[in-house]
């Protein structure tokens, strides 16, 4: 057992209870797990819809826009989380106001606009970090993730925003699914397609800002895309793939935080690597299942 005298010395003992005890021995690590858990659930749930809606590019851009928000907040001496949420939510509302092509789906028409915004956001964030001249590693932390120094206030803010996002998503889950899969019919049935799209972008912005605080702005896809993409490969049943997405997201986050704690390498790398491994496994297993399914089902289809 490590005592208080050996603070900072963390070594994987391969003794599960002992290692788990080490993981929560420090308050900053408890905070990191709390933020990570909330973030994983929010990112999984919202990422599932984002992948289905083909809005990954918008999601990534919202996270990148959060970066100058956070850097600017630190420079001004504010809580970084305030900057993350404020900038991402603002950008989401701007995207929602962009005129959409009549055929409607996605951001193919506006991709140049969104790309332009993304580059400018990165440049502005870089400027703020330079102005601050603070910790040398704050730039890497903002871009690629860091779990050190999560304050109690930040935990509370992340939890509140996360709960609000999930509540909004829960309220609109079914009509949003309808509008995503079958926009024209949904509109004819009186589903407020445009309003749902705006609220979803806002919730997506908040989710991207949350994930940014764990994986960094550049690696948000690790939690927003990878679990959802993997789960949707495994099953086409919406309920199951949604549940699986949230579970994968949680496992990937917890493992990533633990691995980063016991090693000298950054958390963003681990979360992303575990997410990527999950995705490869999902694609591989789908390929195997499809091949077996063809062998089993082949004659039946001919007979039917």
């Amino acid at each position, binding site marked *: 057992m490590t005592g208080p005298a050996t603070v900072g010395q963390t070594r994987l003992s391969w003794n599960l209870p002992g290692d788990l005890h080490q993981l929560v021995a420090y308050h900053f690590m408890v905070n990191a797990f709390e933020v990570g858990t909330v973030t994983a659930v929010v990112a999984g749930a919202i990422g599932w819809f984002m992948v289905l809606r083909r809005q990954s590019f918008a999601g990534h851009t919202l996270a990148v826009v959060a970066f100058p928000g956070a850097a600017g907040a630190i420079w001004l001496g504010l809580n970084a989380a305030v900057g993350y949420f404020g900038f991402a939510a603002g950008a989401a509302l701007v995207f929602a106001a962009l005129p959409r092509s009549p055929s409607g789906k996605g951001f193919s028409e506006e991709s140049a606009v969104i790309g332009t915004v993304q580059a400018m956001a990165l440049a502005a964030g870089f400027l703020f970090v330079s102005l601050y001249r603070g910790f040398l590693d704050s730039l890497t932390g903002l871009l690629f993730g860091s779990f050190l120094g999560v304050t109690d206030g930040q935990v509370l803010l992340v939890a509140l925003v996360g709960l609000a996002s999930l509540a909004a998503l829960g309220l609109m889950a079914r009509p949003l699914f309808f509008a995503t899969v079958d926009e024209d*019919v949904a509109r004819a*049935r009186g589903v407020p397609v445009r309003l749902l799209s705006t609220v979803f972008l806002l919730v997506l912005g908040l989710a991207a800002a949350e994930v940014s605080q764990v994986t960094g702005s550049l690696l948000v896809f690790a939690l927003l895309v990878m679990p959802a993409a993997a789960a949707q490969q495994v099953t086409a049943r*919406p309920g199951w793939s949604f549940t699986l997405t949230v579970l994968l997201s949680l496992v990937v986050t917890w493992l990533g935080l633990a691995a980063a704690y016991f090693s000298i390498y950054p958390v963003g790398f681990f979360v992303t690597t575990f997410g990527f491994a999950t995705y490869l496994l999902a694609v591989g297993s789908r390929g195997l299942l499809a091949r077996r399914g063809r062998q089993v089902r082949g004659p039946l289809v001919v007979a039917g």
Partner: protein
Amino acid sequence: MTHSRQPDPVVAFAGAAVRLGNRTIWSDVDLEVPAGEFVAVLGPNGVGKSTLIKAALGVVSLSAGQVRVLGEPPGGASRRIGYLPQRRSFEPGLRVRGLDVVRLGLDGDRWGIPLPLLARRSARGREKETRLAEVLDLVDASRYAGRPIGELSGGEQQRLLIAQALVRRPELLLLDEPLDSLDLPNQGAVAALISRICREEDVTVLLVAHDVNPILPYLDRVVYVAQGGVLAGPPAEVITSQTLSRLYDTPIEVLETSEGRLVVVGQPDAAATHAGHHHR
């Protein structure tokens, strides 16, 4: 088809006009669709056939005149209408089952989270499952409804979408080019299916098409949209060489086969008219 009594028409346009931007799509449209009939809206591409459907749905508003659908202003009776928009097929990568797309027709506009496991235990939930199975059976799609919709063929997708439009037992079906992008055998099969639904389920059908031949044997009435107005009547009156040539402004012949079927020849096909309207 003659009706002894005259019930209110299911769709009624009176002096209707639509302007999109500063272009008048059509004007002075008077049109009545009687209950229980299978009616086709025909005409070259780009004349506003889909706009006619969208005006009935209330998605596009009229610039003049009025339209009533099932006795209500457009949009008021949306729960009693089944709508199949002009399609776009689903992306091959869309990992959602055909069954789920059909289910959205049943309850997709309700707020909240779908909880299928809980719903199946309630009487209403079981009723819904029964209706789903019934409607999938009706369009002969039960065999593949459990597969991801993106992986299905155009004909299979179209049957599932017709099931989605039908699942809430609508009184009116609005179908926008349901035979588009289907191969010939599937065009015939889906046309026969729609006609069967119209008769057996007692649903009024208003269908948009640019090729009349696959549906001609089943129609009660045709509506031709051309040159900013419409012309409606029974097929035998409207589908004549003279009328069609005038409407399309190009020579068209209507021939009668030995079995008494009408066939329209020389009708500008989709590709040709599409090119002709490209300058817009």
